[in-house]
């Protein structure tokens, strides 16, 4: 894990809910003993909703991946193994054989990571490929579902497991990178996303 690309920290879940596109800086660290509270009680079908959202993301991940690398032009479509390989070293881990609580916590980290990076990709692509409207739309839709998923996971963790805080790591900062590196990093992350969202869907 490259230290410059990862900003570990403890982030209150409520703040995570207000995460926006392009939020790349770490949120303030709050007390570990902060009381877990949600504005509304979780719906009884929250796990079902989580599974449904995962399935939704899993169903669209490949299309998003294809749209992305197609919009970047050559050499991306023909060098996916080199440019879009899901070898993101600082990606939050996930253990499918863990308890539900553990899995929910790990999934929370992953979705937070992906959500933040998806915001950066969306912003970059609107500038780099202003005419790729379907890609922009797909990125926006995916980010929306992720926000809903994050909210449900938070609710579940808070209500059932009384987890008030989760350490969250953000994705790499693309602002200092050149255009080709941004394209490449986005493709790698989306490749990773496609891979990990399948694992998450299977795990729940």
């Amino acid at each position, binding site marked *: 894990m490259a230290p410059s690309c990862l900003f570990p920290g403890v982030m209150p879940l409520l703040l995570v809910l207000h995460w926006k596109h392009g939020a790349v800086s770490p949120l303030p660290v709050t007390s570990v003993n902060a009381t877990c509270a949600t504005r509304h009680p979780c719906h009884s079908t929250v796990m079902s909703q989580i599974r449904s959202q995962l399935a939704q993301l899993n169903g669209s991940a490949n299309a998003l991946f294809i749209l992305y690398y197609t919009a970047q032009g050559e*050499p991306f479509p023909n060098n996916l193994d080199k*440019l879009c390989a899901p070898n993101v070293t600082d990606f939050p881990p996930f253990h499918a054989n863990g308890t539900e609580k553990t899995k929910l916590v790990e999934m929370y980290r992953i979705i937070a990571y992906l959500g933040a990076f998806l915001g950066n990709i969306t912003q970059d692509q609107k*500038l780099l*490929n202003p005419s790729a409207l379907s890609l922009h739309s797909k990125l926006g839709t995916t980010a929306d579902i992720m926000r809903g998923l994050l909210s449900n996971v938070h609710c579940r963790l808070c209500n059932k497991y009384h987890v008030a805080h989760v350490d969250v790591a953000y994705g790499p900062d693309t602002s200092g990178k*050149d255009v*080709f*590196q941004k394209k490449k990093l986005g493709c790698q992350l989306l490749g990773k996303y496609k891979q990990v969202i399948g694992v998450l869907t299977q795990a729940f």
Partner: protein
Amino acid sequence: MAFFAVSQTAFLLAVLSWRISQSEVLVEHLPLTPESLTVSINSTLQHLHLQWTVHELPYQELQMVFQIEISRFETSKVIWMGNYSTTVKRNQVLHWSWKSELPLECATHFVRIKSTVEDARFPELRFSSNWSSWEEVHAHTPGHDIKLIFPRDKLVEEGSNVTFCYNAGINQNLSCYLDSELIHGEQLYSNIFTFKLNNVPFIREAGTNVYCAVNYALKDGTVLFVSKVLEEPKDFSCETQDFKTLNCTWDPGVDTGLVFDGQPPQHYTLFESFSGEKKFCEHNNQCSWEISPDLQETYNFTLTAENYLRKRSVSTIFNLTHRVHPKAPSSVHFKNIGATNATMTWKIPALGNYSTLLCQIELRDKENALQEHNVSIKVNGEFLFSELRPDTQYVVRIRCANAKHVWKWSQWVTQPLVTAEAVPSKALDVWRRVKSEKGLLHVTIFWKPLSKFHANGKILFYNIVTKQLDKKSELKFQSIPAPANGTELTLNQGSYQIQVTANNSVGTSLASEIVISRDSGNEEVEEEKINGTKDGFHMSWKPQSRGRTGYVVDWCEHQRNLHCDLQWKNLGPNNTSTVISSDAFKPGIRYNFRIYELSTEKIAYLIENRTGYIQELAPLDSPEVKALNLTSHSFTLSWKDYDTEAQRGFIQGYRVCLKSKATQCHLDAVEELLPDNSTCCKHDISNPKQKTFLVENLQPESFYEFFVSSYTSAGESPVGTFTKVMTQDEHSHMLMRIILPMVLCVLLIAVMCYWKSQWVKEKCYPDIPDPYKSSIFSLIKSKENPHLTIMNVKDCTPDAIEVVNKSEGTKTPFIGTGKTLTESEFPKPANFYLLPAQDSSVPGPCISFVNHTYRETACDSSSCAHTPVTDTALPCQLRLLASPDNLQKTLEKTHRDSQGEIPAGEISLNYVSQLASPVSGDKDSLLISSPVPVLCSEYKMQTVVPSCLDSTVLSDNGSLSSVTLLGQGKHYN
């Protein structure tokens, strides 16, 4: 001690002096080597920026030349050498930049520098310094990613050259691509490869990927941004509308902006040199500049366009009063609008007291500018239009500009103007057509609508005043509402004066007058043919009278329509010819022209009548032809009802096309090939009035086909259906002459026979009495044998013949009337005779019957007489008759006797039957009074013998005998 001190002082002074002089010499020969050389890198611009100083400059400033050497990879590999001349000031830090074609990240660069004083003021200082030490510089690659290809995110202009470098190992199979297109490269150094792109095109705003692969495995990539070349702003100008703000505009040309942070669109700045003010323009094609309150008179603007790669500038200098572009006039109105004049007022937004405005006014109709006026004003304007036409719609437009210096006119402001109506200025052009019918004149008055120019308003109605000239009567008024162009009048016989006027809302036009004479409508003039040309119908005529005021030619433009659309043309009294032309004239339509002469009394006299076609066409249809008088050698064709008036040209004749099996045509015909490749013999009839044609010299009992076409000067009517006809048999008429009378005769005879059938029957084949049904039997049966069917000779009682004298008067009625004896005046049956038959084959006496009806002819010839014949004499006589000679003799004798040897009337033979009752004269009484039984009875077959041979034969001895020819052995039971 003193000496020591002095000498010490002197020594010190000497040393000091030497030192001073020595120091001056050293200063004059200092090398002025550049010092403090630092080299920095601008990776984006690929610039090496050098900075150095020259210490201990002997003068305040010196003109120096710096020699610079740049090496790449190694100090020994000098890639560039050059001089930099400048004036160096004491303690000045010198700067100089060098642009590298190769991205600076790809190689370490080394720089050294030395100086030379080349100042003409100080020729003694003309020498070069030593080289500075080599300064090494290497571009820093940001980030932690491994980057192999440079430059990153390079921005260049379209058409420029760009070099990429790739930092790779030795002997690697490297290939680089620009948007999938292979770029050829070369090895620059041990592990550095370069790829040069010349004249790069603009591909897309989002940049183009450049990437390299080693052994076909992608290693790294970058993005090349190619922008359009920044253009110089065009049409840069500034103007003011209110002396408060200057509006500067220009055409920016192409947008050089690229997406992402490749390059933003070019931006523009406006700099005014006199005031030294500068303004960043918010828009890329215009900028506003506030005019200072002190009204700077002259402005010098420089407009600069700039992007990452280039700057472009244009300048303009102007006097403010020469750049006045007034706003469009406002409050444009009309007042006092009359039929021929109107006043226009308008305002101009205030320009203060700085300018006088020149306003341009245009008066236009729908298409053309009619009036143009220039008016100078300050703020408010007013202009009087005159010489306008009544009831006319105009468009007035106005614009203004600075009167002293016209920079730009304001926008046009358009306002419609409609003038008031006036009295119609011209009398109507009137014409008439007259029909005289049943003692009345049907006059149709036509007039041409006044043109808008003469109507001076909307014509509302037409007034018609009719006045009878022959006798004093009241005027008859009639008002016809517009837009009528004619009316019909029914007048009694006489002369009339008719006046027509047009009226609009203001007044009435001058009256147009025509006079209808008593004879109008009854003129008859022979029609002459004329030929039309492309220009129309040329016609000329002869003047009829001296006191004429002009001529009128009228015609119907739509000749075949019910509404003929009467047209007329007025001509002066000296005109005796004219050309009538009209777009309505169509080829193939006959037009009739009437030429009238107008008298001084305004009476029109028909003088000539013309008819013709603007262009003749071939007839469309052919006459309907009937074949008449068909004989064996000829027939006649007739087409009486062919309407030549409706044809599309003057019918000049007809052509009869005759098809037959004959191979050759007659001398008066021409063989012609028909469209169906058959031929016909064509006879030409050049007289259009001839509507019959005799086809002769034909073969009897042959088929002929004929077709008659008409032709005009333009051609012949199309070939239609041929009519078939077959000539008659040559002898048929002869047969008719014979058979017909014979048939008539036969019919007559038949009728006669039918009518006289009874008479003929009685004469030629009277009814043969059945001997078995004879009344004799009734007499016999009743007396002796009721079962007797055949009379026996024995039963017969011979009758006696008595000869009595009889008067002549009793003989004739018997023959002529045909009445039975019982009905005549003979009281007793006299024509029966009973002959005792003595035949060898038939034993016994027989009674022979001879029907008296077979003897009528003989009796009629007055030769018949019933003579009693003895039994013995009969066979002899029969034999005699059987001999042909005897028979002939007998006949001759009988004939001779019948010619008069036996005088009728002198002696008459009366047959008296023994069965007959002497007292009864009728038949019934006879039957009742025959009681004698008969032993046998034989009926002799009756044969018709001409000239009474069967009945009466004269014997050789001159005695009369009655002979019955019997067939031997033939008996009827």
